């Protein structure tokens, strides 16, 4: 019971937090790009684009920040035995993330938001780049920490202290699991932000609002989406190959492949059970899973049952299978939804070529769905990554069940689980309604820019941005 509640809480708070993270990371850079275009060309459409997407970025960022605080605290609150066992390794990237990244992003974003009245033009531009750099650094360190859970390196088990201890921090930061996860996640962040920008711009285009502005931002969004998709595929291929070497059970679960097979197919769709008995209906693409896993169409892919036997021999009695249907379907949702978003973005580019302006309801609805789809793909991808690793918290080293706080009781867990869920639910409604209002309003009208010549601005002039 404790374990289930703690896991639900971690899942809810983390998936929810990660709805805001990729938009923050990707959109920060895109807004920085728009503002750079304005500073260099002095074209008003870029300034209006900066202000418009800057506004959406900030509504989203606020949620990302506040839900991120929970992340830093909940390891100690709900997973104290986990924290004790791996804190010597896991704590370092978290602390460094705070010192290197959180300060950078928070301080410079404050400078950017309120700097329109306080900083000269170019210095002000530099602040959004610094804040964006902070978000990317943050992603790196937290993914290095996560990579340690997927594939622990650079540690030894100290029998005297009864815990895992760090011996090579460089290995933790630079192992291929961390690097590839970083590239894959950053690509997905740009993909998400590109789709966000493209979808909202396309919707405004249909409505005929600020056409010159949103036409540019739609192009920027779509091109980002396409380039990022290529990066996702390339990095994803690498991530999958590493996963097969380091966590073969996860790959077998992704395909619901029970017996070790050469030339394993990839099933697009299954009706019926995924328990290894014959499914009712299944569309298979031959050899694709083998190719994804090994780079060869006839490569051997290990099956769930074989791996289970192997792990029992290695780690002792126990169930080493993750939840197969969840792994199977989230893997497909990640890929399927990502592809769907790409197709719509490409279609939007085609439909708006030259001076064409689509007017159909269908197109407008698709445009509004576009920002949401990658978020679902992101969530599916992470649910797959984390649930596919179960029963391990740290693969091969510590089971999730052993990490939970022993002195936190069920009523306490229920209080925080219900509390966070309720709070997050209300905030989601508030946030989406503000985003909707901002989108409906469209890019703000042009206003003379007040960037002062000197650092500091004035204590009498009216301010352009205030709380």
């Amino acid at each position, binding site marked *: 019971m404790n374990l289930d509640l703690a896991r639900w809480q971690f899942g809810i708070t983390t998936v929810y937090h990660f709805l805001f993270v990729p938009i923050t990371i990707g959109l920060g850079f895109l807004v920085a790009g728009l503002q750079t275009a304005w500073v260099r060309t002095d074209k008003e459409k870029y300034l209006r684009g900066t202000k418009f997407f800057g506004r959406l970025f900030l509504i989203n960022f606020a949620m990302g920040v506040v839900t991120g605080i929970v992340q830093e605290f909940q390891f100690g*609150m709900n997973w104290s035995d986990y924290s004790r066992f791996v804190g010597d390794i896991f704590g370092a990237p978290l602390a460094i993330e705070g010192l290197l990244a959180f300060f950078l992003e928070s301080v410079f974003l404050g*400078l950017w938001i309120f700097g329109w009245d306080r900083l000269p033009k170019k210095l002000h531009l530099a602040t959004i780049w610094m804040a964006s750099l902070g978000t990317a650094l943050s992603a790196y360190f937290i993914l290095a920490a996560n990579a340690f859970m997927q594939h622990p390196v650079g540690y030894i088990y100290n029998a005297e202290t009864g815990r895992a201890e760090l011996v090579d921090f460089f290995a933790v930061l630079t192992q291929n699991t961390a690097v590839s996860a970083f590239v894959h996640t950053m690509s997905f962040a740009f993909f998400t932000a590109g789709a966000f920008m493209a979808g909202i711009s396309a919707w405004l285009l249909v409505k005929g609002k600020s056409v010159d502005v949103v036409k540019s931002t739609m192009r920027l969004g779509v091109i980002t989406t396409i380039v990022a998709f290529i990066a996702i595929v390339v990095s994803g291929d690498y991530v999958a190959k590493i996963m097969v070497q380091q966590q073969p059970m996860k790959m077998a679960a992704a395909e619901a492949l029970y017996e070790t097979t050469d030339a394993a197919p990839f099933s697009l769709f299954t009706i019926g059970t995924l328990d290894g008995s014959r499914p009712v209906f299944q569309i298979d693409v031959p050899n694709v899973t083998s190719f994804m896993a090994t780079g060869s169409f006839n490569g051997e892919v290990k099956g769930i049952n074989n791996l289970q036997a192997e792990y029992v021999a290695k780690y002792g009695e126990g169930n080493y299978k993750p939840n197969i249907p969840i792994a199977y379907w989230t893997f497909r949702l990640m890929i399927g939804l990502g592809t769907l978003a790409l197709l719509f973005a490409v279609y939007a580019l085609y439909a708006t070529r030259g001076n064409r302006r689509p007017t159909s309801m269908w197109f407008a609805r698709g445009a509004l769905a576009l920002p949401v789809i990658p978020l679902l793909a992101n969530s599916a991808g992470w649910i797959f990554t984390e649930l596919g690793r179960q029963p391990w918290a740290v693969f091969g080293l510590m089971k999730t069940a052993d990490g939970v706080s022993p002195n936190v009781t069920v009523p306490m867990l229920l209080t925080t689980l219900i509390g966070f869920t309720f709070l997050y639910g209300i905030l989601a409604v508030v946030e989406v309604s*503000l985003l909707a209002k901002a989108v409906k309003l469209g890019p703000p009208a042009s206003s003379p820019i007040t960037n002062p010549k000197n650092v500091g601005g004035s204590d009498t002039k009216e301010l352009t941005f205030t709380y």
Partner: protein
Amino acid sequence: MDLQIIWFVLIAVLWIGFFVLEGFDFGVGMLLNVVGKTEAEKRAVLTTLGPVWDGNEVWLLVAGGATFAAFPEWYATLFSGFYLPLFLILVALILRGVAFEYRSKLGGKVWRKNWDRLITVSSFLPGLLFGVAFANIAKGVPLEVDANGASQYVGGFFNLLNPYALIGGVFITLVFLTHGAIFLSLKTSGTIHDRASALVFKLGAYAAVFALIFLAWTQFAYSNNPGITLITILLVVVFWVSGLFFHRAGREGYAFISSSAAILFTVTSLFAGLYPNVMPSSLDPSSSLNITNASSSEYTLKVMTIVAVIMTPIVLIYQGWTYWVFRKRISAKQIVNAESGVLDGASK
């Protein structure tokens, strides 16, 4: 051993950063509805915090992260032990951050009034609860060593609400209120400035009374190093009193530096009183956590020290620069269209 001392000091420094910086922004949040009467005034009050509150809050996150990295046992025992107070702090911090960003986006009276209430409450809670939490750490809480050799908190929630801890909570709250009022008087002009200034001495006097009770209690009942804590407590008194008198004399900058120094020495006296413990047990000294039995390995501490030695000064420089960039006073007159929000146009 040396590295463990360095990290004990560094974690104290991080908490000092949090108490000094977010301390005033909690205070400003608590005073929002007292100092700001009109919409323009309220927005001017919030705008003094706008560029800095988030950077201030990072000190808390890094204090948490650094405790995790340098003293995992302390992090695990403290965070799982003080579970419900931490949950309330998290809820408050979540609501507070969102309230800052969202309240002025729309102009509706009910909308803004609700956010204003939330800002007040969510600025009170963390100061109060951190005061209670730190007092409990100083006093010692029931810790028991479990079968795996880990010190676990066995006290429950209401055990944390003892008289000493509650006085600590009120003390910290009053300090933050005063510190916030001094900050507002330094950063604003016009009506808000006058209202905030008028509050400083009174709030400061109440804070002084609680400071004397709490710090004397700490000194005589719980200090492990009474020599050092006596000095730091005297410094708290000196800086607090001089801060109030600087403010009386209209020297708001010096007043703010003095109240910051008083907070610095308050946190210092709590940590100095603890050393070498980080979390003493009220049941049995052998289940106390100290800088040795709670710490990370030598290697981890070494890595972390290198990073901290390089990064902390850089952070201080650019965060300090922010305060310089936003050095101008803000007045309600600078807020245009205070009653409406930037997103209002959409609903019309």
